[in-house]
């Protein structure tokens, strides 16, 4: 009887330890991924009719990023709200510059706002999952 209780106790404590370890590892990985989520706007240009902008972005970080939000709106104004949408994937280590087409609201002077999340934390069915590990970047659109 005592041996049986001991085995049960051992299994319970080991499963708890495994669970804590897994959660800690998962959390650490997410925080490291967030640390290395970097996005650079290399260039941006408005379309002829001013309804959208082509924003060229690259990624100096370590992990591929998924851009879920890209919007151009007047500097100082509240950003327009809309749901997350996959605008593009940006590979790490500055290996590629990716052109994104972003909607433009209002009038100059403009600011570009981007929200990106590490690709391995992105769930296409539930884009808002792990959104707390994403990064928001704002850039002034010159000209």
């Amino acid at each position, binding site marked *: 009887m*005592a041996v049986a*209780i*001991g085995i049960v*106790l*051992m299994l319970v*404590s*080991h499963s*708890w*330890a495994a669970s*804590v*370890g897994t959660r*800690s*590892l998962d959390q*650490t990985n997410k*925080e*490291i991924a967030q*640390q*290395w989520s*970097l996005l*650079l706007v*290399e*260039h*941006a*240009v*408005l379309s002829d009719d001013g309804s959208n902008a082509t924003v*060229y972005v*690259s990624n*100096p970080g370590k992990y591929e990023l998924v851009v879920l939000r890209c919007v151009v709106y007047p500097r100082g104004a509240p950003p327009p709200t809309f749901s997350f949408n996959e605008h593009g994937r940006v590979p790490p*280590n*500055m290996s590629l*510059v990716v*052109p994104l087409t972003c909607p433009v609201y209002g009038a100059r002077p403009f600011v570009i706002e981007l929200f990106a999340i590490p690709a391995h934390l992105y769930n296409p069915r539930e884009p808002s999952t792990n959104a707390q590990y994403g990064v928001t970047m704002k850039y002034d659109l*010159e*000209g």
Partner: protein
Amino acid sequence: MTSRGDLGFSSVVAAVFTVVIVIAALIPTLLYTQSLYSILSSEINERRRFEIERYSEKLDVFVLQIGNELTLKVANTGPISLVVVRVWAYDVGTGATFSPDGPCRIQPIAINPGSEELIDVSACVSGYTGYVMFKVVTERGREFTSNVVGLRNGMLPLSQFPFTLTVSILNMHRGKTYTVEVTPLDDGLVSPRTFTHKATASNENVTVAFGTTAGTFNVTLYENNRLVDLGDSNPQSVRVPDHTAVVFDLERTVITSVNLEVTIMAPRRVGYAEGREVQVSVFVRLPSSAQEPVTITSVQANLLIAAGGGQVDECSIVSGMDLYPNQMILVAPA
């Protein structure tokens, strides 16, 4: 049968085993968590080091014309090595790139501290006429831009100073000497650096032109070698070619012209007698409403004529003197 002593001993053994089992699970968990924390700390340190290195990067980008090639001279003036991964060229007015894909050059170029590299960008702007800016992007994600350059058919114009900065001085004070000084605040060039003008009339306006390259300049106005107090308007900082005109309005009251009052002093009546001489004096007076003194620059002597058979034998005139409001002076004793 089990004695009370055996039961007590078993309970102690069970308790010890329970503690051993719990500790056996807890200690590896703690060690594992500790190792994860140390990995996270190490990543945070690496990220911080990356950021420090990133902001230590420093590149100077110059646009040169070497023969038929338009070239970027990229000098690493920072303390660490870096890698240029992309070069952009775009129209300053519209922001449009010259390559449909975006960047005009994508071959990585490593540059050591203190070194410089020449990058041929002729193909990026081939045949283009207009104002262009070049941007260099590094592997750590920094961007460095050149000055704005004016191109003609994809080449730098021969003139050393492709831009003209005009400086206007409005409502100058007559007789005072004005000096405009243009000082580069970055690596821009200007010629000449100073211009001096003496105002010969009230409320005189003058516009002078300076040849410049692209850059930021401080434009300062001096009156008789003293800085003119125009608040924030003097000195003015301008970035060429974004702005190519500077106006200094001295905001003096506009001077309204008034007529001089002429007074002729002569005998009321002169009897005719051959050989008799009559003296006539001509005075001018500046009305008290005049806002500033004037200088009598000349008097036309031939305007004085004698009617009724007389003749003007001698007419001496006086000029070159200053006349103050409400002052009268003799200009022509005849």
